[in-house]
């Protein structure tokens, strides 16, 4: 496919960067090396960050207006003719409103459209429940052949975009609105279908995706201070999922908590639960942490995480229950 991408952007650990910003930067860099890359948006380019690509490559950017179904259908047509389309909107509309177009126009046609959806999860914040999709991972992962990735930070998001650009099958990338700390340095290497072990431990495994990776790291600090040894796992690749990596950590610690800013139904937690049920011979203590099958509400994104039980204090508390 395209020439190798030159990384023009490195993110420093601790910097506050939204994953959507890394997406915008990655598109800009991809556009420079791969003339087949095209980008579609549905009147949200200023928010999804596709605006940078739009400015640099106006002839390869298609604003489809507030019409997400048509956008996905058009992206499929572009892919059919060999283009490398990225289609963006808020996750609520890309995965929710346009689900059937993603399923039939894109996936059933075996077309490599990269659906890159921003403003996912509770951390959208003030816009409230109408925009806080907590169902998108579930919706996307049930579509046959769909790859589903939830990057943890800007470093990973940037690499994920460059990785899915090379796929010849459809993919969904879940991106956030909120600025979150960069947790991976330049040595980090994202790989589809692989977990990354951030820190090794022996008592309990915290398996997280997206912004919850950072929250898990914070919770691990609390647990360590109390003398527990925590294994921290980033599971950005929700589909395909790293069966070996998950089984390995579960067998090692015997205790697993999954963490996601998504409904506990159908997301990372259920994906990991399936892996454990089918592959672990020994008894594993297991807890899914996420939004417990309820709608969100307006508020500051980080306060919302806390309100719905996804703050580091509560994570540590739940971990201690499993440890007791």
């Amino acid at each position, binding site marked *: 496919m395209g020439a190798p991408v030159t990384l023009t952007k490195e993110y420093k650990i601790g910097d506050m960067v939204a994953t959507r910003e890394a997406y915008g930067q990655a598109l800009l860099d991809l556009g420079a090396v791969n003339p087949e890359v095209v980008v579609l948006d549905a009147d949200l380019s200023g928010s999804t960050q596709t605006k940078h690509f739009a400015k640099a490559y106006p002839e390869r950017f298609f604003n489809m207006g507030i*019409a997400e179904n048509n956008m996905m*259908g058009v992206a499929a047509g572009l892919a059919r003719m060999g283009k490398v389309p990225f289609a963006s909107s808020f996750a609520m509309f890309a995965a929710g409103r346009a689900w059937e177009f993603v399923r039939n126009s894109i996936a059933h046609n075996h077309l490599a459209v990269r659906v890159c959806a921003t403003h996912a999860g509770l951390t959208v914040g003030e816009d409230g429940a109408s925009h806080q999709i907590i169902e998108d991972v579930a919706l996307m992962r049930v579509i046959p052949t769909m790859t589903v990735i939830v990057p943890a930070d800007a470093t990973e998001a940037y690499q994920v975009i460059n990785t899915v650009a090379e796929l010849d099958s459809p993919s969904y990338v879940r991106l956030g609105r909120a600025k979150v700390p960069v947790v991976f340095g330049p040595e980090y290497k994202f790989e589809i279908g692989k977990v990354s072990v951030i820190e090794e431990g022996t008592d309990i495994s915290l398996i997280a995706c997206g912004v919850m990776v950072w929250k898990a790291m914070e919770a691990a600090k609390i647990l360590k201070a109390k003398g527990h040894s925590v294994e921290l796992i980033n599971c950005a690749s929700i589909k395909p999922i790293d069966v070996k990596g998950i089984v390995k950590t579960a067998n090692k610690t015997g205790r697993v908590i999954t963490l996601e800013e998504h409904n506990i139904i159908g997301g990372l937690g259920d994906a990991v639960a399936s892996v454990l049920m089918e592959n672990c011979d020994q008894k594993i203590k297991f807890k899914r942490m996420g939004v417990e099958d309820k709608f969100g509400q307006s508020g500051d994104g980080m306060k919302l995480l806390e309100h719905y039980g996804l703050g580091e204090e509560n994570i540590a508390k739940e971990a201690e229950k499993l440890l007791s």
Partner: protein
Amino acid sequence: MNFNKEQVEQKAKEIRINSLKMINAANSGHPGGSLSIADILSVLYFGEQMNYDAKNPESESRDVLVVSKGHASPAVYSALGLAGFFPIEDTMSFRQLGSQFQGHIDRCRVPGVEMSTGSLGHGLSNALGISLAIKLNEKNLLENSSDARLANLEKPELTGSSMRISRDERNAAEEDLQVGSRTVFAILSDGELQEGSNWEAIMACAHYKASNVICFLDRNRIQLDGWTETTMALHPIAEKFHAFNWEVIEINGHDVDAINDAINKAKALRSGDKPICILAQTIKGKGVSFMEDNVAWHGVAPNNADLEKALVELK
């Protein structure tokens, strides 16, 4: 353009006959909407209106046809088989487990099918994407060409007679590069206009000045539950397309001369900036008296006796 009316009418007949045989063999499928587009398909594939290569279905210079009404699969498969994409006899496995001929057209299994459809309201969006890709490629071709006649391509400030001359030269150069030669055809059913996504696509085709899109609207006036006008009224369709900034050419969709003329007219309109709708007035079940205008034959298979009667009428 070499248009052999006799041949086109003969092939339309063969499309109809093979479609009904397929549906009868499968004991399942959609005869009504297959028969209503047989003449349009025949003009496209056998009237030399569509550039395709049955031996090289992905040819870079081909025209593209997106059939949005994917349930008309018997007619599409029959046309492709007759055009040599695969042996026509193979289509008799239609709808059977393991067959390449799925109930609704499937591009991954059948050469010549450009997009898998079946869920209504997708095809025109797909066609627009294909049109945008073709236009991007043509633009690249022009920009990377060393043809001197294209040197002033980026000089819109040229006016008056010098402009006219340069435009002629440029047109000649573009023709040499085959820029603007590819057409994206779409065939939509009338009932599927009730899907809101079609109106998103209709709006977007006009916005992107997709004048290489020629969209047939199969106005057979019947959908699964009954007449379109009692189920969810669509009239007036031409006015709706006009209001969305499309060119509309209205014809009898069973008159192969009229279909051919309409395509020629649509191609001549390509230099404009509007997408073109050929509003084809058709009859659901056309060609078989007991199926014509009869909602009962939307999605019901003819049994052996029905088929026999139908074949007598069609031969």
